[in-house]
C-alpha cells in the first residue's frame, strides 16, 4: 500500500465503529420497516408470503391525507412564525458585545436543553383552561369563558415555536455576524436609506441562512412527536402521533411502516431543497 492509499484508508478505519453501529441499529431496522410496508397485515400478523402496495394506497384515504396536510400546515405556520420572530432577535444579538451575545444565545438554547415532556408540562400550566393565562385574563375581565390554548393546533404551534426557535436563530446569527459592515456602509454611502440597506443588502445576503434555518425548523416540526402528542392531544393529531398509534397500539407494522416512509420522504425533500439552495448561491454560473 502506498502513502496516498494509506492516507485514504486511515480515516475509514476510524469511521468503522460508528458505521457498524449505524448499520446494525439504524439502517437495518429502517430497511426492515421498508420491507414490512410492502407486505399485507393480517390478524395473525404480517404475511411475508405476499407483496402489496395496499399500505401505501391507504395513505390517500381522506383521514390519513388530512392528517398529513394538517401536519404540513402546522409545521409551515410554526416555521413562518419562527423565522419572523428569529430575524429581529438575530439582528439585535449581533449588535451586542460578544460576551453578551454568548449569554443571550445560551438563554435561547436553554429550552432545547430541557426534556420535551417537562417543557410540555410547563406549557400546560400556562395554557390550560385553569392556567396562568386564562386565570389572568378572567381576573382582568377580558374573557368570560377560558380560551382553548391547548389540546388543539394552537397548543402545538406555541410549544414548537418555543421548542425549535434556536434552530432558525443560530444560522441567522452566524450569517449576520459574518456580514462585512463595510457592505452596509457602502450601500448607505451610495444613498441607501436604513430600510434600503436592509432590503437590498442585508436580507439578500442572509437569505441562504434564513432558508437553511427555515428548512431545518420545518423538518423538525414535521417529525416532532412528544410536544404535539402532549399539547395537541387527540383532537389535533399529527402524522408522527398517528404513526405511533398504528405501530404501537394497533401493532400494524406494515401500515405503520408506510406512514413512517411517507413522513421520511416529506422531511427529506426540504433538506434536499435547502442543500440545493445553499450550494446554488455559492456557485453562480460563469459566463465566457
Amino acid at each position, binding site marked *: 500500500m502506498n502513502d496516498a492509499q494509506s492516507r485514504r484508508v486511515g480515516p475509514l478505519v476510524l469511521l468503522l465503529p460508528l458505521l457498524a453501529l449505524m448499520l446494525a441499529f439504524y439502517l437495518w431496522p429502517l430497511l426492515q420497516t421498508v420491507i414490512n410496508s410492502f407486505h399485507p397485515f393480517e390478524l395473525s400478523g404480517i404475511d411475508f408470503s405476499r407483496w402489496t402496495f395496499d399500505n401505501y394506497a391507504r395513505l390517500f384515504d381522506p383521514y390519513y391525507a388530512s392528517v398529513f396536510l394538517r401536519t404540513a400546515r402546522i409545521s409551515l405556520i410554526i416555521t413562518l412564525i419562527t423565522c419572523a420572530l428569529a430575524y429581529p432577535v438575530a439582528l439585535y444579538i449581533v449588535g451586542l458585545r460578544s460576551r453578551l451575545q454568548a449569554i443571550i444565545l445560551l438563554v435561547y438554547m436553554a429550552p432545547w436543553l430541557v426534556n420535551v415532556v417537562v417543557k410540555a408540562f410547563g406549557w400546560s400550566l400556562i395554557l390550560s383552561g385553569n392556567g396562568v393565562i386564562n386565570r389572568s385574563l378572567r381576573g382582568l375581565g377580558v374573557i368570560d369563558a377560558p380560551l382553548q390554548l391547548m389540546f388543539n393546533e394552537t397548543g402545538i404551534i406555541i410549544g414548537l415555536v418555543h421548542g425549535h426557535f434556536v434552530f432558525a436563530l443560530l444560522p441567522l446569527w452566524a450569517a449576520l455576524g459574518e456580514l462585512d459592515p463595510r457592505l452596509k456602509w*457602502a*450601500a*448607505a*454611502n451610495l444613498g441607501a*436609506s436604513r430600510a434600503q440597506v436592509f432590503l*437590498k443588502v442585508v436580507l439578500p*445576503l442572509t437569505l441562504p441562512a434564513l432558508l437553511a434555518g427555515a428548512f431545518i425548523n420545518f423538518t423538525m416540526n414535521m417529525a416532532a412527536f412528544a410536544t404535539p402528542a402532549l399539547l395537541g392531544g387527540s383532537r389535533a393529531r399529527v402524522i408522527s402521533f398517528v404513526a405511533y398509534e398504528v405501530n404501537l397500539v394497533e401493532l400494524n407494522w406494515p401500515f405503520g411502516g408506510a406512514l413512517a416512509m411517507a413522513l421520511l420522504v416529506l422531511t427529506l425533500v426540504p433538506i434536499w431543497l435547502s442543500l440545493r439552495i445553499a450550494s446554488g448561491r455559492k456557485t453562480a454560473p460563469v459566463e465566457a
Partner: protein
Amino acid sequence: MIGTEGKMLELDGIRKFFGPVAAVSDISFTVEAGEFFSLLGPSGCGKTTLLRLIAGIYRADAGSIMLNGMPLGDKPMSARDTALVFQSYALFPHLSAFDNIAFGLRMRRLPRAEIARRVHEAMELVRMSAYAARMPNELSGGQQQRVALARAVVVRPSLLLLDEPLSNLDAKLRDEMRGEIRDLQRRLGITTILVTHDLQEAFAVSDRIAVLRSGRLMQVGTASELYDRPASRFVAGFVGHVNLVSGKVTEIRNGAVTISCRDNLDLEVPSRGLPWTVGAPAWASLRPERLRLGSAAAAVDAKVVGVTYLGSQVTLRLDIGGLPLRADIQNVGQTLPASGDAIRVSWAPEDVIARPGSPDDDE
C-alpha cells in the same frame, strides 16, 4: 480640470475618540475643488478614521466639516454627497458588476434608461464593459477595483474618497491603477481624497499631501514642499531617508546659520526665517542623494565603511569623524569607491534641512 474655483471641503478642529483614545485630534485643512488631496501616514495614524468621518460612517466628537460650503453636521451617510471606495472594495457579492455600479443610481430613483446609459458610460471609463454580467467573485482584484471605482464615480459625487484603494493589488498592477486613477480624476475633475501609507503613491498622484501621525496633522503641502522643506523630523524621515545630525547653533550671520555637530563638522545653512538662538540645540538632515563625492572647496573628509550595489544606484555608508552618514550616488560608470577608501564629500547648503530645537521635540 473643471471648477477649480473655491473650497470643496473644509475641516475645522476635527476630533474623534474611540473610548478614551483620541483617534484624531484637532485636524483642520481645506481641500480645493478639483484637487487630488492625499492623507499620508503610517498605519494607526488616523487617516482612515478621518476619511470615515468625512463620509459619515463615524460622527466627530468635536469640530466641523463643510462640503461645498454646507456643514455636514448630523447629515446621515446617505445624504452626504461623497462616494467612498473601500480598501476591500466592498462590492455587493450578490449583485453583478452592472448591478453594483447601478446601485447608487437606483437609490437615487433615476429613470431606467438613464441608469443603463450612465452605468455603461462608467464601465467604459474603467474599461470593464465586457464584464457587466460577472459576479464579483468571478473578477480579479484589479477588475474588482475598477468596478468599485466605477460604482463610486457613476453617482457624480462632489467628493471621491479612496481608502487605500491599491494596497490589495500586486506591485505591477498597483503602478498601472495608480496612473489610471489619476487620469480618471483629471478627466472627471472630481475632488478626491486618497488615504494611503505609501509615500510613492501619494507623491505620484497628489496635488497636495497631508502627513498624519498618531491622529495629528504634521504638515500639509506639495510633494516637493514635504520633501525639501519638512516641518519636522518625523515628516523629513517619513518622506524619505535622512541623515540626521544634531548640534548647537554657534553663529547667526546675514541669512545663514552655523550649526556645530560634534567637534569637527560645522554645517552652514540658510536661516529661512526660523527662530534660531545662538547656543540653542538644532538639528539638520541631509538627503543621501544630495551628497556629492569629490574635492569641492567645502568638502569634508570621509571614510567609506560599506558599499551596497543596487544597479543604477550605489549606496555608501560613510564615517565622517565618527558620524555615520549614508550617500546614494548614481552609477554612471565612474570608478566606484571601495570599502575602506578615504574620500571627500560635499553638499550644497540649500540642500540641508535644518530646524532649531532637539530632533526629538516633534510636536
